[in-house]
């Protein structure tokens, strides 16, 4: 092989080497971007699931106020709370399908302070945790009076 051919082969190898380095850099960049997009999408999906769980709790028939089959929005019947707590403990699997790993607490702020914990299934192995606080009316059907409360939904998502 003459010297000119050897130089040309060397040149080709150098060009290919630079080309593959550029391809590798591009690939690494692409993978990083895809990875960050996936994480972003995962976070968005977690947020949506958390909002879904919060809405399911807010419109739970076991807790909602109703009169003559007419439902009052944004209201929890205090008398239903204790029964709901017992039912949720008894039928844990059914409610797990609805609320997954979360804890649902209701705190009365006015007229007196009180707290009810109606569902709690927690895990240490979670990737994101969201707390949603929803101000809600607490209706006492016996005295026909409304209190001011907060429905706190803490969701843990894997």
């Amino acid at each position: 092989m003459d010297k000119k051919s050897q130089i040309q082969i060397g040149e080709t190898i150098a060009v290919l080497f630079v080309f593959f380095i550029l391809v590798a850099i591009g690939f690494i960049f692409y993978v990083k971007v895809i990875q960050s997009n996936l994480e972003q999408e995962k976070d968005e999906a977690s947020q949506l699931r958390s909002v879904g769980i919060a809405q399911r709790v807010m419109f739970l028939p076991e807790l909602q106020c109703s009169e003559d089959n007419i439902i009052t929005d944004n209201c929890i019947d205090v008398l239903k709370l204790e029964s709901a707590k017992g039912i949720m403990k008894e039928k844990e699997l059914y409610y797990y399908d609805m609320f997954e790993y979360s804890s649902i607490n209701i705190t009365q702020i006015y007229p007196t302070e009180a707290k009810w914990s109606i569902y709690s299934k927690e895990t240490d192995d979670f990737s994101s945790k969201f707390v949603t606080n929803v101000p809600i009316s607490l209706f006492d059907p016996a005295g026909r009076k409304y209190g001011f409360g907060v429905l706190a939904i803490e969701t843990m998502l894997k």
Partner: protein
Amino acid sequence: MKRAQMEILGLAIVVVLILVATTFIVRFLVLKSPTEYRAGFVSSELASNTLNTFLKTSAAECSQLSMTELLQDCARAESITCDNGQSSCSFVNSTAKSILSKTLGIWAIRYEFLAYTDAKLPLIKIGQQCRGEKKSKLFPIPATTTTIYAKLDIC
């Protein structure tokens, strides 16, 4: 065209293509801002739920009258005096202050609560005026001669 000139032209085309591809990737993939579904849901619900719940709340010290009824009296003649000696206006004011500080205050959310018939002379004003973006909820309450507006701004 000479061979060297052809090669330079080819190189220039490759560089332009790489620049276009990079701009495209940066524009659509890297600078894509995350969608805050939960924050949107929470802030849109918060103002309306807080105000709605507050207006419906029964005042234990004022014969279980609702805050709406007390506001109506406050705008009318302040004829109601609660068990603790407070007038309707001052009772709504102190209760709203207490409830909002135990909720929005604890959650470190800035707010402004107003109840007025004339926006320049509010009957009740709690919190600081929002600067910049805010979520607002306005509830008109009919009274005998006028309309009372209860407004909550979440900053």
